[in-house]
């Protein structure tokens, strides 16, 4: 039985050793050590995923078992949901490290240690069962991410992006710590299960204030409206392998933090109140906002970043629905989205490697020679639209089962983001229509990340994208996907079982989950959504050939301009929005929860 501590300890040790000896060891040793470590994490996380799926297990650090009902030390709770996310983090890190085999000759050996620390932080965050430990891993994740974001120090834009990222996320961390302190004053405990038991049935103003601060902290990481402003800035300037991790897993881990805390601490307080609707509302606004901004964007990485915002909004909505089916769907959606988004970012990285630009107009028609990247990109675009054959579709069907309003939001957001990606594909790889407008963000030029940019493309650049897109499709066709997800969701929601496990370590047998078959019912809307995405993309690309009355909004240029001005690049603005958002969350929670 591999100790869960290895998930965190091994990457940290390897990172420290690589950092200590960075001048002595050759590049390929660092590459190999990092890839092997990440793959090892993947294996351990998968092992635990298989073994903890039906019964959560607890690991007490330092051997400090609880005394009576009081946790003395820090515990990891290995459950299906958490281990699944740890496995996804490890998989994406492995692929990103493979992709970066030829990158960053100039980073002087700092890249690998930071990536491994980032991996350790994500793994620990996914399975931690202690609220302050969550904060520590949140900060560790942030610190490594800030440094990775500013990797390209040749020009000011990445530094500005990293600075905005760092300021907003640090403020978020301190709000979160304020929330933790409030909870500690109410219960005198830091273990999630212990806090949850102490608070059960209590929803006074103190609990709601703590909820507001904690949730705001997590939602900043999850880039929910109006806390999302940092994300496009950070993504558009980060190196591709880092973008993969940011978009594929880090942002979703922010949401997962909110979910974990809600499931263990606040579920018993807010049962029967309207508080989950808060997440539905935030998620819906974010999904639509991100979809619109995504469609109006012409910088490839920024476009993908806004699509991440939109999809994380959809996941937040699914979280707010808070049924077993919705959480199972959310789990599948999260994993599938991580894979597809990673695949798209890898494709964008190939384009950047080959053509040294990320601007849609500048790339117009250039991709014709890339025979392998084009299908991957188009498949990714269809995947984002949750077309049939991608696991996103299976997830979405479970979330929107019996909720037509949710289906409408998934439809619009999926079609918008899918259309934006397909539009870029049509322009870049097929050279269809015109080059598209040049906007301000499309002019942010990027320095190449590779040392041999423009030269031939090696298979290490393609393989990760193939694995990602292929994996997402395989998940859709594997029979066990939904069964695993439903088991994970069932134990995730079951707070009594969780608390019992933390204290007693006893086995809780869950009721077998009846397998749903919703897919046949959802297929019509999925096909329609994919068709809508293709149609909108074609309309945007060929807008000069359609009748004049239908032409004007094809890029959302005019109507979106005042909205896009809000994305001002000024950290002060972002913090002002963050403050307002925290206040709104708090007041709304007071109103819904009391």
């Amino acid at each position: 039985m591999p100790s869960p501590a290895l998930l965190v300890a091994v990457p940290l040790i390897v990172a420290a050793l690589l950092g200590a000896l960075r001048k002595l060891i050759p590049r390929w040793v660092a590459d190999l050590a990092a890839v092997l470590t990440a793959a090892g994490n993947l294996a351990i996380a998968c092992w635990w995923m298989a073994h903890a799926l039906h019964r959560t297990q607890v690991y007490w650090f330092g051997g400090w078992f609880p005394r009576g009902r009081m946790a003395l030390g820090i515990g990891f709770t290995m459950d299906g949901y958490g281990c699944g996310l740890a496995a996804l983090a490890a998989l994406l890190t492995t692929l990103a490290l493979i992709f970066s085999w030829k990158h960053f000759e100039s980073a002087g050996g700092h890249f690998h240690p930071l990536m491994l620390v980032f991996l350790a932080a994500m793994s620990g965050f996914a399975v931690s069962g202690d609220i302050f430990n969550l904060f520590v891993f949140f900060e560790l994740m942030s610190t490594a991410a800030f440094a990775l974001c500013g990797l390209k120090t040749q020009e000011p834009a990445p530094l500005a992006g990293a600075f905005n990222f760092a300021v907003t996320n640090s403020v978020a961390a301190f709000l979160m710590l304020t929330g933790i302190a409030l909870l500690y004053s109410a219960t005198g405990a830091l273990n999630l299960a212990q806090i949850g038991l102490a608070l059960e049935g209590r929803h006074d103003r103190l609990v709601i204030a703590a909820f507001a601060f904690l949730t705001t902290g997590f939602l900043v990481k999850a880039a929910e409206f109006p806390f999302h402003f940092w994300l496009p800035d950070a993504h558009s300037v980060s190196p591709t392998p880092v973008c993969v991790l940011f978009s594929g897993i880090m942002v979703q881990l922010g949401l997962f933090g909110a979910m974990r805390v809600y499931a263990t601490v606040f579920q018993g307080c807010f049962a029967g109140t309207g508080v989950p609707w808060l997440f539905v509302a935030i998620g819906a606004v974010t999904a639509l906002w991100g979809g619109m901004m995504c469609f109006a964007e012409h910088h490839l990485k920024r476009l993908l970043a806004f699509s991440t915002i939109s999809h994380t909004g959809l996941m937040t909505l699914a979280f707010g629905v808070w049924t077993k089916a919705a959480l199972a769907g959310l789990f599948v959606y999260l994993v599938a989205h991580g894979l597809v988004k990673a695949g798209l970012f890898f494709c964008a990285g190939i384009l950047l490697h080959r053509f040294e630009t990320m601007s849609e107009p500048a790339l117009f028609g250039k991709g014709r020679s890339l025979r392998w990247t084009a299908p991957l990109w188009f498949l990714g675009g269809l995947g984002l639209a949750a077309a049939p054959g991608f696991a996103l579709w299976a997830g979405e069907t479970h979330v929107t089962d019996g909720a037509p309003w949710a289906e409408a939001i998934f439809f619009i957001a999926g079609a918008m983001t899918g259309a934006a990606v397909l539009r870029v594909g049509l322009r870049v790889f097929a050279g269809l229509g015109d080059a598209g407008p040049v906007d301000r963000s499309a002019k942010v030029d990027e320095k190449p990340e590779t040392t041999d940019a423009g030269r031939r493309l090696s298979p290490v650049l393609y393989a990760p994208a193939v694995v990602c897109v292929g994996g997402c499709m395989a998940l859709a066709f594997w029979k066990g996907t939904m069964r695993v997800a439903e088991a994970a969701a069932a134990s995730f929601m079951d707070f009594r079982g969780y608390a019992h496990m933390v204290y007693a370590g006893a086995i809780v047998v869950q009721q077998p989950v009846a397998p749903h078959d919703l897919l046949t019912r959802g297929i019509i809307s999925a096909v329609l959504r994919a068709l809508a995405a293709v149609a909108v993309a074609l309309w945007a690309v060929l807008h000069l050939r359609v009748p004049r009355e239908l032409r004007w909004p094809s890029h959302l240029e005019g109507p979106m301009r005042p909205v896009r001005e809000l994305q001002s690049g000024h950290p002060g603005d972002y913090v002002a929005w963050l403050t307002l958002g925290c206040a709104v969350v708090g007041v709304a929670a007071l109103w819904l929860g009391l």
Partner: protein
Amino acid sequence: MTLPADYPYFIAAWILLCGLYGIVRSRHLVHMVISLTVVQSSTYVLLLAIGFRQGGYAPVFAGLHTGVKVVDPIVQALMLTDVVVETTVVALLLAMVVKAHEKSGTTSPDDLRFLRG
């Protein structure tokens, strides 16, 4: 004069809002970083206030009976972590500021807006 008995809690909130105000009104990136440390210091005050016990001793039992009333050692351990986090984040942010200044020649957040729209 009667103070509200819980005034340290409110002072923590005041410091939090002061720090946020500093970030929002800032015209210099270093100023912004320092304001961020003020935001962080509010969590020290809050944590310390929560763990305090009137008439309690410091939780160091060198020359103390183990039975005496002490203040909460847990919050102090959390604050130690907090202090380290503060310095490291500041070091990293200041390095970004220095580098951004070298690359763009400005230290004002108003002029460092390369990422708009």
